[in-house]
């Protein structure tokens, strides 16, 4: 069975190591913060200028001057720091953020990602995504393996305008975990109940399937 959004988020959270500084994009990536394993602490960076982002505020805590990169009201943890956008992106661009997790429309076997623009549709902008994929040490993409028509989103070459080149390290989809290795998707794990055949069918890019592909544990 394909993973739920929550399961993808749960799997993402297992990528975190104790002490990681992590930037989570809107959507499934943000959910991953709810599944950080026991004994592991991560500090969340929000690119509008907050290191040590906390949970959403209670009614009483709401403060218009405290928002996240998604423009939602938010809180800060004890020991956080707050700074300018230039400082925030200095941090990101300079490779100080350990992990960035973000969604995408497409990725390809070269580690390219397309996540911000569909020609012919209104383009709202890239926000901080291009900076994040150019800067973080470890870029993880979360998305469904295929679109609603069954078309693969893991391609030989992205067809949409790119967000970044040769930058993603790992893709966590509803069907599998894949790594970018030597110009191919390397199948690292399959979702419970999802066959290798299905993954093969829904991966348009070059796929390397090792002899033993572990099943994700939940």
């Amino acid at each position, binding site marked *: 069975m394909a993973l739920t959004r929550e399961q993808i988020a749960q799997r993402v959270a297992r990528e975190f190591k104790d002490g990681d500084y992590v930037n989570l994009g809107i959507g499934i990536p943000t959910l991953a913060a709810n599944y950080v394993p026991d004994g592991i602490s991560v500090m969340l960076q929000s690119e509008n200028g907050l290191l040590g982002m906390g949970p959403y505020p209670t009614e009483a805590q709401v403060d218009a001057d405290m928002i996240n990169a998604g423009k939602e009201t938010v809180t800060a943890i004890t020991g956080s720091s707050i700074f300018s956008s230039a400082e925030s992106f200095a941090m990101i*661009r300079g490779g100080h953020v350990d992990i960035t997790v973000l969604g995408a429309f497409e990725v390809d076997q070269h580690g390219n990602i397309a996540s911000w623009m569909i020609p012919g549709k209104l383009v709202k902008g890239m926000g901080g995504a291009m900076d994040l994929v150019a800067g973080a040490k470890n870029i993880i993409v979360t998305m469904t393996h295929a679109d609603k028509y069954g078309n693969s989103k893991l391609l030989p070459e992205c067809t949409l305008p790119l967000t970044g080149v040769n930058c993603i390290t790992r893709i966590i989809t509803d069907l599998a975990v894949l790594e970018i290795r030597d110009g191919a998707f390397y199948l690292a794990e399959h979702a419970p109940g999802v066959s290798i055949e299905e993954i093969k069918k829904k991966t348009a890019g070059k796929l390397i399937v090792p002899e033993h592909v572990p099943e994700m544990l939940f």
Partner: protein
Amino acid sequence: MSGFDKVVTSYEEAMAGLQDGMTVIAGGFGLCGIPEGLIAQIKRMGTRQLTVVSNNCGVDGFGLGVLLEDKQIKKMVSSYVGENALFEKQLLNGELEVELTPQGTLAEKMRAGGAGIPAFFTATGYGTPVGDGKEVREFNGRPYILEEAITGDFAIVKAWKADRYGNCVYRHTAQNFNPMAATAGKITVVEVEEIVEPGELDPSQIHTPGIYVNRVIRGTFEKRIERLHVREEA
């Protein structure tokens, strides 16, 4: 130290000199930390053909969005826009031009503009439409693109407190683009919640030194929340 007293008492004085066709750099992220009264003054002045450099363009009826109502903006330089129907309409009509710029590059362009750095290399945007037509150069085996600085005829900034000399501090994430915007305007106007006397702010804890600031005005702020997200009490 009267020559350093930056305080003005009317919005007319605050924005005096703004003319059609000028470039205005605005602080703020979404609706957070925006100079509400200065934006309202630009609307009252009816200045047109403006290029506005700001991460976003407000929403319908609030923030920079109000400047769309009378088509005062010719061009936006932003990382993310279109939270408002009017913006979308003017963009599709061709009444409004947008230069999409990655958020970090935008922040760095403003900082560079204020810091006398005319251009810098960044990996951000390489191999994407943002890099089209820009010089590419490798450093340590990695390709980077050349991005140029941004300066404005005016910078409009929202701070929490400023002293009479223009030294500013920002509150929480309302800091965002404001410190860089403050450095990059030929005339920098700061709208604040509170004006304090020199010496009330800790010298080592000033976010924007007064040298960057030409005018300070006390405003009142609605501080509209764009996306209220509340959790249940535990």
